[in-house]
């Protein structure tokens, strides 16, 4: 009888333990799942990790020169410059546009130039004649690199450092 009560006591605590093993196994299974995106890393890899997995080490990207101004290179407004301050810019013929284009081939609200991180993106706002980035028509927001011409109607703009 005494043996049985000992077994029962052990099983009683064993069950509590098993429940917590269950909880911690679930948490352990989730841990890997908490990684947000493949690129998410916590801190820099240690030297040992770098030796074992060379793909973890990424060269620092070359320092980008941030665009500071927008220059109109072709069209009626040639020579106009606009300082880029970090707020989105609306391009078009409408009076509320940041850069009012006096261009018959541009739409009222033609395109939008907006900063994200350290880069500027251009997005077409459903214009009639389209927006061209380096010769290709925009179908979605794309980053604008320095010196790449953006054509809106007969106007061409560029970002300059």
């Amino acid at each position, binding site marked *: 009888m005494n043996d049985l009560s000992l077994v*029962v*006591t052990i*099983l*009683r*605590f*064993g*069950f*509590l333990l*098993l*429940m*917590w*093993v*269950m*909880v911690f*196994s*679930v*948490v352990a*299974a*989730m841990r*890997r*799942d908490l*990684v*947000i*995106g*493949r690129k998410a890393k916590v801190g820099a890899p240690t030297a040992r990790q770098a030796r074992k997995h060379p793909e973890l080490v990424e060269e620092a*990207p070359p320092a*980008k020169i941030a665009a500071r101004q927008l220059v109109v290179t072709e069209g009626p407004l040639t020579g106009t410059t606009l300082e880029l301050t970090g707020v989105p810019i609306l391009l078009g013929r409408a009076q509320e546009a940041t850069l009012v284009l006096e261009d018959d081939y541009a739409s009222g609200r033609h395109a939008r130039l*907006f900063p*994200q*991180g*350290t*880069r500027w*993106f251009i*997005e077409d706002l459903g214009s009639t004649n389209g927006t061209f980035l380096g010769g290709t028509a925009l179908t*979605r*927001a794309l*980053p604008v690199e320095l010196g790449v011409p953006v054509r809106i109607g007969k106007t061409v703009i560029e970002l300059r450092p």
Partner: protein
Amino acid sequence: MSQLLTVAKPRRNTELLLLILALGVSAMANALVNLNLGRTFDNDFFTQIAILSGLSLAFHVVLRFKAKYADPVILPVVVALNGIGLAVIHRLDITSGDTAATRQWMWTSLAVVAAITVIWFLRDHRILRRYTYISLLVSVVLLILPLVPGISAGNVNGATVWISLGPFTFQPGEIAKITLAIFFAGYLSSNRDLILLAGKKIGPLQLPRMRDMAPMIVAWLASVGVLVFQRDLGSSILFFGLFMVMIYVATSRVSWIFIGLALIAVGGVAAYQIFPHVARRIDVWVNAFDPAYIGADYGSFQVVEGLFGLANGGLMGTGLGQGSPDKLPVANSDMIIAVIGEELGLVGLFAILCLYALLIARGFRAALGTRDAFGKLLAVGLSFAVALQCFIIIGGVTRLIPLTGLTTPFLSSGGSSLLANWIIVALILKISDAARRPIDVSASSSPIEQLSPIDATQKEVPSP
């Protein structure tokens, strides 16, 4: 709202391992009950373990085929909770001579089959969005059913929430929880911008236009109004909380939280003044240890006995089968948490609460990961409904808030609740499958195309 990308891995083998562990927990709980109450390990014990294993493994196999990328921890957690619930109900049956465990086994089988059916036939959770208004209609009908003479099971324990279907009774309000969440998700995912932007502005407050809010108000009145007539305070709080949280998540305006809390305060005071049964609940809660209240009809006897049970359990508990839950009224439904607290102690109770927390967190995680507004809202709504239900009943048993009759998800004896919660789990699994499935990158290479539609105002682009 941030768009979280996960590494695409099915992880079904992890699920299988955790499932075996969960089945081990259930089997051991059952074995301890038999051992402590001097029962022999007869055929029943082995059949029951076989049934639970068969059902959950079948579910697992269906997930392998139909929702390969579904979240791997949800199913094991739910199986563990359900298994512990079955063991505790079985244990209570042995003391009281009831047959609730047999019924619970039947309902568990039915609920798992229903959940498997949902996983099997629901190709994509977005299909449910087509049934937005039908869901509203179904919710209203389900909530009115218990008041219809003929199928109503009448007033049971002070609330008219049951219908009788032949030999069975059913609580349609539990299913209404799901259909209301589908309606709110469908309606808010299409009309969120209208509610947010169209309308008069008074000071800092942007008031939504009446016609944009009308269907929501209909849904709210139907749920809260009918429940006031049915005298089911718990469900009423549950539906109201669901409504507020979904509108808050859809619009991301903090003001909704304050509006919700203010409405709860106003509603609470009004209900206290108008409805004697609400006033009674609150008086009983405040004066729980007053002997006059303990002895009275609908008094605090239940909650006080529950608290004594919890105290008797202490840190480690008395051991399954060695407590004295025969002193507790309705021990196997409303008060099951008190029984678990007594027999497994604080340590065991907290393990159960952790399992709930993990389940709910995985539901929210599925909502974060999925890419359509409807799926996000539905997953948040369903997970929050489970969370709030746990809070209302566990808070009630531990006398944090007034005790209202709700079931503890997956643990309590109660077929409709089990069925509804398993269907909720199936829906969350389906949404998490959509969330974790790798994106087909052949069509577009830029993550710009994969914007989360819940956030239309702020374009998200790859950070450099």
